[in-house]
């Protein structure tokens, strides 16, 4: 990157002098033998009248071909029939990315245009200004494209927003591709600040479709169908791509009358996946009741107010059930004498133990509903006022009806003896919410984000917490209000300084609360819906139109330091991104587990297999 004044490479054409070139956009008349594609990077050297030399770098954003000399459409046939002389002229529209040194001038009309390769390519993409470079994909010629790590890890910016149509836009795959490079590669170790910092970094991935992401620790059975992938990974600096090595999987606890705690999972053995849920104590202390009321209409009524009142009252009366370690609680008949009304302060307090007779024992979501129904049924004005504020019986009824409706949706997640999702022991944590009802999905996402957020508030940026969440529009819709949306907006706005970094994905940007994409440093888009493309202001109209025709695996990435979004591709993953890709492995595992089970049943529990 030393001598940048004279790009000495193959000429691809001349700056078109028949139209004006500007400091932002020029046209290039291509040489007869030049093969130029969209997204090719070019350099133009211009000598200023004061003998200084500047180099403009640009990206090809459109290509044109015409017969010069043909003035009317019908002239085309005359040229083809060899009646009219005409010259075939090909032109490229180039959007300028950078002037080096930074002088805001236009390239000279008629100046020679060369391909920007090597150091010139790095300058064109501002890579000289990136001290720590995270590869974000390969450009369409197969060269790596980088983003500046300080815009990823929260120092200068954070959050990633990925948009595109489901199925073809490969949004989740791209999120995983980014995580893989951070969490699994040697470069990632450096980018995250060394091995210790890397090992304390956590990524929480919500699986929203099938059981697709419950196989990331397995090799991709279709790896062999993509012979080019190994080379592409090598270009990204990954010599031996492997599955994710440090993964912990979670699935919701399966419905069980007997109270057993087993993960509800089909494509993996139940021993490989942790069942998750919250004990009544966790439910109350983490104030998860608020995430039970996240549907569109919950906040437009008084129900939200009742919820807040009830949540505080539960905290004020919270006791631990004596001699119990499963998380059961007692909702005491009377609150602590010194209990205030600040929910966060109440939640911080270690609850006292209580005997069952001191109140009502709660071991499940059902029990909790029972408690509230009993309270609501009382005639004691004072108790009612304490629990429900000054609300009418109608509002109380609505609150309870909604809670009852949630029983089937959330009920199994709140129970004694379950473990919540912990971010210990592994770097990547995949939480399956695909089989849950929308209400329950919002509950889980809200509960987990809240715990990460609370844990990180006050501890500073490191260690980093990445959260991958698809269908962001469901959790933070553009319109309406909910505690979950509030939390996500808070994370978007303050998360980067606290090291909570959201990798959010959505089909349609316009359906998501604007604060989320606005705060994302890295914006990526795969194939876009044509009717939707207006929302993507960070792309030029031409690129938006083009994005409606992107093939799976092609994305466009916009980042703060590079003024134009760059189309990229990313390689086929070495890890399985759905059960089919893990087929060979998982079949074997399921069969093996079945055999172990059968042998155990035959031999008895004591036999050590």
């Amino acid at each position: 990157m030393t001598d940048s004044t004279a790009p000495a490479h193959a000429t691809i054409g001349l700056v078109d002098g028949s139209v004006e070139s500007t400091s932002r956009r020029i046209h290039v008349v291509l040489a007869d033998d030049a093969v130029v594609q969209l997204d090719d990077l070019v350099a133009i050297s211009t000598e200023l009248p004061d003998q200084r030399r500047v180099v403009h770098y640009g990206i090809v954003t459109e290509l044109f071909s015409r017969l010069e000399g043909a003035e009317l459409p019908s002239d085309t046939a005359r040229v083809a029939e060899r009646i009219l002389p005409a010259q075939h002229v090909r032109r490229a529209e180039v959007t300028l990315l950078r002037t080096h040194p930074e002088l805001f001038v236009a390239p000279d009309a008629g100046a020679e245009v060369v391909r920007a390769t090597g150091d010139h390519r790095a300058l064109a993409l501002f890579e000289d200004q990136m001290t720590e470079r995270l590869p974000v994909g390969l450009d369409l010629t197969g060269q790596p494209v980088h983003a500046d790590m300080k815009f990823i890890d929260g120092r200068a910016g954070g959050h990633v927003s990925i948009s595109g149509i489901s199925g073809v836009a490969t949004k989740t795959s791209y999120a995983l591709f980014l995580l893989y490079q951070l969490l699994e590669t040697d470069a990632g170790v450096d980018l995250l600040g060394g091995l210790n910092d890397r090992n304390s970094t956590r990524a929480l991935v919500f699986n929203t479709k099938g059981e697709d992401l419950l196989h990331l620790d397995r090799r991709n059975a279709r790896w062999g169908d993509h012979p080019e992938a190994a080379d592409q990974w090598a270009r990204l600096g990954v010599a031996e791509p492997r599955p994710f090595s440090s993964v912990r999987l979670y699935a919701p606890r399966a419905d069980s009358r007997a109270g057993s705690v087993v993960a509800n999972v089909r494509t993996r053995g139940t021993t490989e996946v942790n069942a998750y849920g919250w004990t009544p104590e966790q439910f109350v202390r983490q104030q998860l009741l608020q995430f039970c009321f996240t549907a569109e209409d919950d906040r437009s009524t008084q129900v939200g107010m009742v919820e807040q009142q009830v949540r505080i009252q539960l905290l004020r009366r919270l006791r631990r059930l004596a001699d119990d370690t499963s998380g059961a609680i007692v909702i005491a008949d009377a609150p602590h004498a010194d209990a205030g009304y600040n929910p966060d302060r109440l939640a911080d307090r270690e609850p006292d133990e209580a005997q069952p007779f001191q109140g009502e024992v709660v071991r499940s979501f059902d029990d909790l509903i029972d408690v509230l129904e009993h309270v609501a049924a009382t005639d004691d004005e004072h108790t009612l006022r304490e629990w429900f504020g000054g609300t009418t019986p109608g509002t109380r009824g609505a609150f309870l009806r909604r809670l009852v409706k949630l029983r089937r949706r959330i009920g199994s997640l709140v129970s004694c003896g379950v473990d919540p999702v912990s971010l210990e022991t592994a770097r990547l944590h995949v939480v399956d919410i695909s089989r849950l009802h929308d209400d329950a999905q919002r509950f889980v996402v809200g509960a987990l984000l809240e715990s990460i957020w609370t844990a990180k508030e006050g501890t500073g940026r490191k260690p980093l917490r990445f959260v991958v969440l698809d269908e962001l529009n469901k959790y933070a819709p553009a319109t309406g209000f909910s505690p979950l949306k509030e939390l996500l907006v808070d994370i978007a706005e303050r998360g980067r300084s606290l090291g909570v970094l959201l990798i959010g994905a959505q089909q349609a940007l316009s359906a998501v609360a604007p604060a989320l994409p606005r705060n994302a440093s890295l914006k990526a888009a795969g194939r876009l819906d044509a009717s939707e493309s207006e929302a993507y202001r960070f792309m030029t109209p031409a690129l938006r139109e083009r994005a409606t025709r992107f093939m799976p695996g092609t994305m466009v990435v916009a980042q703060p330091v590079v003024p134009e979004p760059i189309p990229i591709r990313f390689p086929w993953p070495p890890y399985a991104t759905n059960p089919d890709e893990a087929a060979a492995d998982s079949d074997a595992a399921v069969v093996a587990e079945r055999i172990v089970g059968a042998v155990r049943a035959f031999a008895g529990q004591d036999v050590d297999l």
Partner: protein
Amino acid sequence: MTAGPTFGVEPFEVGYGASFAAQGGSPLDLDCPVVEDGGVMTVHTPPRAGIPERLAFVDGTMSTDARLTRREADGTLAAGIAGAWAAGSVLSEAGLPLRLDGVCFGRLTVCCGGAPVPLPPQPGGWEWEAVAVEGDDVEVARQRLQRRMREAEGALAERLCDAGWLTVVDGPLNNVRRTRTVPIVGYVKTHHRRMLAADTWARVPELEVGQRSSLFAIGADLYGAYLRVGDAGPWASAWAGIVRLEVPSGAGRAAATGAVESAAAWLPRFASAPHRDRRAPVNLTPISGLERALRRHTGDPGLALRAVRAAVMQLNTRETATTATRTGDRR
């Protein structure tokens, strides 16, 4: 049918002059003898034929950029012009797209009164060769510029002929050696004088599209024939669409007849369409394309005028300076 007059629209733009200017008697009128069909003007319908394998169209353009004056110390005034000429060709080779070739061009100042106007070169590639002509008629100066263009056309046509191209020259064959034996065709769009006996001449408009007249001898070394190259439309005058072909007589009459017969067969294919060209159909499409290309070579007339002005200013300043120096010397 009554013998009343019929009316017609001349296809040419005013700027090009009329395509037919041969009405009325003129001392230049000729009575060229018909040398085919027993001396009787006959209409021939040549069978349609394919375009020759190697075919070249040669043409030139010229433009007057500025009018100049030269005022001597004694007050005598001479007029002149600054202008540009260009010549080039379009080559048609089987299987390849048409292409431009042999383009050459230049700028000239031509001044009357025998003394030139030596304009200094200007930045941007403006350069003039200074030429003087005798007399005081600016038209003579203009003809001098045209001669330069015709000479270049002629040289290019000769070169292409020598290289084996069947060459169509836009205009009469004035600047081509008349004794040539290889096929070369002059293509004349305008009719400035009557070339046949009056009664024969009157029958020329009988030609339909693609039909040619009998061959006639133009002097000793050229043969001519009329061809209706295209339909100028029902509104057009009787001569619209008719061109005169010229071939050298060096190869003999039979060869000349053959050349005209075959040219009459494929030339109509190149006739231009009225919406495409003000001079349609006689201005051939490849030639109009060539002319546009040549005009691009001679540059923008507005810029040319600006360059002439700048050069004149520079010239005058220098003259004044030289005079001043001389005056100083005398002291």
